[in-house]
């Protein structure tokens, strides 16, 4: 008999305890982020940054691409398609830019003025494309990717990101380091589309051959 009433009491009581908990939860604000629409959570500190070296979307700085086709060759899934026309022997369009890797794991893209292999304890001036001249001490430099002559017209440089398996081999073989994988959130990750054909990125810019390149490269080409 005692069991009987105890069961009734406990049935009611435990149900009420549970209902109290769920009602508290009901009144609590929800934790959902309406992600693509509301991105305020990105400012919060507990959201981790995307680490350096993350393999995101591929990008090619087409002006520095020398058309060597190493990336096309090494791609395991054949997602890169390149067609080139070779210039007559001995001619070249311009030189690719230096990529200066600094010891603080950043990199600067630009032409080093003067010697490409700077001596120690000197300052190096780097002529970048967008930010003017940047000077760094040679102690900060980890290594430098040397300039290479561009001897191909690039008619086509297509990367099909729907095929890419993000192995990153193409960026490793690139001699001028113009083929990179973005490692930031907005460029490297959020590029989903509704149409798969929109994932084929065409990097070739035939119009860049029409106008004469700027004076410095012109002068170098004349040498």
């Amino acid at each position: 008999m005692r069991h009987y009433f105890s069961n009734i009491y406990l049935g009611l009581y435990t149900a009420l305890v549970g209902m109290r908990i769920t009602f508290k939860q009901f009144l609590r604000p929800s934790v959902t982020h309406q992600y693509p629409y509301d991105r305020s959570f990105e400012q919060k500190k507990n959201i981790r940054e995307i680490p350096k070296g993350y393999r995101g979307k591929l990008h090619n700085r087409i002006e520095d691409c020398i058309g060597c086709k190493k990336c096309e060759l090494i791609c395991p899934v054949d997602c890169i398609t390149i067609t080139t026309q070779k210039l007559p022997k001995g001619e070249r369009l311009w030189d690719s830019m230096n990529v200066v890797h600094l010891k603080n794991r950043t990199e600067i893209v630009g032409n080093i003025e003067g010697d490409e292999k700077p001596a120690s304890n000197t300052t190096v001036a780097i002529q970048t494309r967008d930010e003017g001249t940047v000077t760094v001490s040679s102690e900060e430099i980890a290594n430098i990717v040397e300039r290479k002559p561009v001897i191909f017209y690039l008619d086509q440089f297509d990367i099909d990101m729907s095929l890419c398996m993000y192995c990153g081999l193409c960026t490793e073989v690139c001699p001028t380091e113009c083929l990179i994988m973005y490692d930031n959130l907005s460029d490297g990750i959020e590029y989903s589309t509704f149409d798969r054909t929109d994932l084929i990125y065409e990097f070739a810019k035939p119009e860049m051959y029409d106008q004469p390149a700027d004076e410095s490269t012109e002068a170098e080409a004349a040498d």
Partner: protein
Amino acid sequence: MPLGLQFENLHQFFVQSSESWAQRFVQDHAPVLTHLPAPLGELVIMLACCVIFVAVVPLLPLGLVLAERKVSAHIQDRVGPMRVGPHGILQTLADGVKLIFKEDHIPREGDKFLFVASPYIIFACSFAVFAAIPFDKSILVSELNIGIFYIMAISSVIVMGVIMAGWASNSKWSLLGAMRSAAQIVSYEIPLGLCILTVVMLVQSLNMQDIVTGQDGIANWLIFRTPFTFVAFFVFFISAIAEVNRTPFDLPEAESELVAGFHTEYSGMRFALFFIAEYANMFAVSAIAATLFLGGWHGIVPAEMLPQAGILGFVLKTITLGGLLGVAIKTLLLVFVMMWLRWTLPRLRVDQLMNLCWKYFIPISFFNILGVGIWGLIFPKDSMLSIIISIAVIILGLIFTFGVLGRSLSKGAEPPPSSAERRISATT
């Protein structure tokens, strides 16, 4: 002539046609119809009622499904549907449109006729319940002398549709779900009926409008009229949750065990009909609970203490939970409690389900009937003294149970059955 006479008697037994809301409405607003020959005029009135209710009632599930999703989402710290319309208010509509355009699939080996018929039976029965629920003094489709009995009867037919659906699907999940549903609904109909009986004993009438009429003001609500009806309300409400197959009594539709129970094989519009019927049922049982125990369209404050005329009267009536909107608020509160319970309690086992019904609810209901009978003998009908004593007993009882008795009761609980015992009870 004898046949006609018989019909007249039968008609008077079932329907107080002079009191019908629809007829009064027609007499006030479309007197032309009263000149029609009697059966024809009645037919027109019936059709008008049908059209109004068939147009309005499906809108309830539309809102309730969204409410359920929102409530469940917020209990789980989510936000629920947000895309279709502001805060997802058109989500159910979009789902409905999707279901209409889906393929209507009938199992090849199934019983085609029963398969097609059962959604309509369930749909029609759960909607027919609304015909006898009073939403205001004059808003009632059909004032039946046996209103609550009719509701019990018509809602019992739903189980037939469920079994038809389960059998006709030719699927083990459907059949098991239907069998469980039948066992559950038949079992829980008994405490439900007994709880209604306590109300009927107090009111001395089966007419839904009569049941409401006496409940003017919160002290007169039947839930507070005797301590036994207070208990009966909870037994009624929990049994009603079991009747409409909702968690924690959703064994017939247990997702983790039976896919979806009796409507596993249904798709498209037929599935939508089941879904609408389920939510309409939920609303209906809540409305019945509100009508029987929580004063129906009578508010907290007695009607003579409030101004009746104009917008002010209507607003005051609604605020004190009276009138059409008052019933709606009470009903929706009960519906909310159902949703709240759904996301609080886990599903019962079959043996626990039957234990709860046969060992607890039915004895308690019988005790309630006995108690209400004795209460009626001791106190004269509707005396102020009985109400005061009743409310005092309820409050003292609650304090005693949860304050004093609880401490000793919480220690003496029956230990959970061992696995061997559970196996035995599962096989029997």
